[in-house]
């Protein structure tokens, strides 16, 4: 199974064409096997008592952050559906929908970056050496975000930025309401853009499978609630987080 595909250019030279979409099925299978293995592992583990959702409510996500999260989620899913469905044989006019979703994601990510830098505590989501003690020490509880959550955020950040940057290069090569395409990039450069876009798409698919799985796990459902309603209970806070490392707003 190849990672990339190649074609001959106008001069007969071999040029990179993009990712080999045979990898799509491999990525899906690997991601689902990992999820299944984790589900089996968790099923045989002793289940801890779940903290109560009653009691005082602590704010975990502000409304604006929740809105941006769902805007990004919807745009990424729209990008995946419009980009991947034609590859697996579902035919429709996908390109315009795809770039509109791409622009929506780009705007949401830019907003998120600016807000994170100017108005939020960037350090709360950055991975620090101490965080690596969490998996091995039951007494080491995380601040606002666990190591797994920070790792997921870092991976999604890198992959999303790469998919956006490569997508913007490709966007410049098609007709839009604002410009006519120029075909100004060489085929080999375009090939690299398609390869990066394809590989990051595959990575995003795997990350989304993991994200959905962990979101829907029973012991993690309160995080999903917090991304919808904004709050977690005091009990959930003390059971999963270190109140000294994260002091949430109690006004939720």
């Amino acid at each position, binding site marked *: 199974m190849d990672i990339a595909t190649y074609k001959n250019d106008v001069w007969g030279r071999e040029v990179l*064409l993009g990712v080999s979409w045979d990898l799509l099925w491999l990525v899906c299978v690997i991601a689902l096997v990992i999820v299944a293995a984790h589900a089996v592992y968790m099923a045989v583990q002793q289940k801890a008592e779940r903290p109560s959702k009653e009691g005082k409510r602590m704010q975990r996500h502000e409304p604006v952050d929740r809105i941006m999260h769902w805007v990004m989620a919807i745009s990424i899913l729209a990008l995946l559906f419009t980009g991947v469905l034609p590859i697996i044989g579902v035919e429709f006019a996908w390109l315009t929908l795809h770039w509109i979703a791409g622009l929506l994601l780009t705007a949401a990510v830019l907003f998120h970056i600016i807000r994170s830098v100017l108005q939020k505590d960037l350090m709360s989501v950055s991975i620090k050496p101490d965080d690596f003690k969490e998996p091995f020490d039951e007494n080491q509880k995380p601040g606002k975000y666990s190591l797994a959550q920070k790792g997921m955020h870092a991976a999604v950040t890198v992959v999303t930025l790469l998919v956006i940057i490569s997508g913007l290069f490709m966007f410049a090569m098609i007709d839009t309401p604002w410009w006519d395409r120029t075909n100004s990039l060489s085929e080999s450069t375009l090939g690299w853009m398609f390869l990066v876009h394809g590989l990051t798409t595959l990575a995003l698919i795997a990350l989304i499978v993991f994200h959905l799985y962990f979101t829907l796990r029973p012991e993690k459902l309160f995080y999903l609630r917090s991304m919808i309603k904004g709050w977690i209970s005091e009990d959930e806070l003390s059971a999963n987080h270190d109140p000294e490392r994260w002091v949430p707003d109690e006004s939720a």
Partner: protein
Amino acid sequence: MASFDVMPDVQLYQPAELDDALSLADRYATRGWLLGGGQDTYGWLKDRAKHPQAMIDLNGIEALRGIRESEDGIEIGAATTLRDIILDQRIISDYGLLSDAAASVASPQIRNVGTLGGNLVQDARCWYYRRGLSCYRAGGNTCYADTPDGMNREHAIFGASRCVAVSPSDAATAIVALDAAMVVQSVDGERTVAAEDFFVGPATHITRMTSLEPGEILTAVRIPAKWAGKRFYFEKVADRNVWDFALVSIAVAMSMDGDTIGDSRFVCGAVACTPRRLRNIENAARGKSLSDESADAVASMASDGASPLNANQYKLPLMENLVRRAMRA
């Protein structure tokens, strides 16, 4: 790129029954090649620009040939030659639009062997693509025709999405104007597709020109009686009158009430990747009479929404004038 006088090494199947052809088409799918009259096929193969493993010759299947009465009009087998269509009296009298369109295809020699199905499903004629270059339509990442120096005089002014190739079929414009249904068969059964939906643009599927899936065979074209004997107009403008593709063509079917136009279907060829219905013209023409005044009143709408390339802006007035000529008394 080298071109060869001899055919490449390819497995040739010559089934006599449709079921056998469907089985072969299913077995080989994208590795197979359906052969009609061969007028689209042999260039590809001799240029070694396509590399099928198997060629499935449909010409020996009697069920795919001939012109038959159907419940509501006529049914034409996909392997019926263009010559047979041109000479068929029922088609001449009731569906003259199709015989006119078929008569405008290529040359007498090609019409003698070229089939209706082959003409309808033939591949794009963009020379960059036919040359075997890895353009968008060939699965690549670029279009050679839509560049500042690209040779795009014959290319699309509507509906381009990365690829700017046009539908080359003369019969397709007539088939869409006659509101035909395409009969498509596979080992899974039969489906019919409206001619207008049969042709697909690059926004939907950039490496195909029709909705035919691998393993499917276009077996017949059904033309409803709705437009039988109506007023027809077909005109094809090309650089020469024989053995050339359209620069712009028009096929029109009009239901007349005296001198007044009722329902109509105006379809232009060679301006988009699919035959282009001119719905705004159809709406504007309803209730008008056939006259120079009516023609002048609606003709300029034909090119609404066009996005010409560097070398094909002439197609806009050409389209408008063809509409004008179709609406003259």
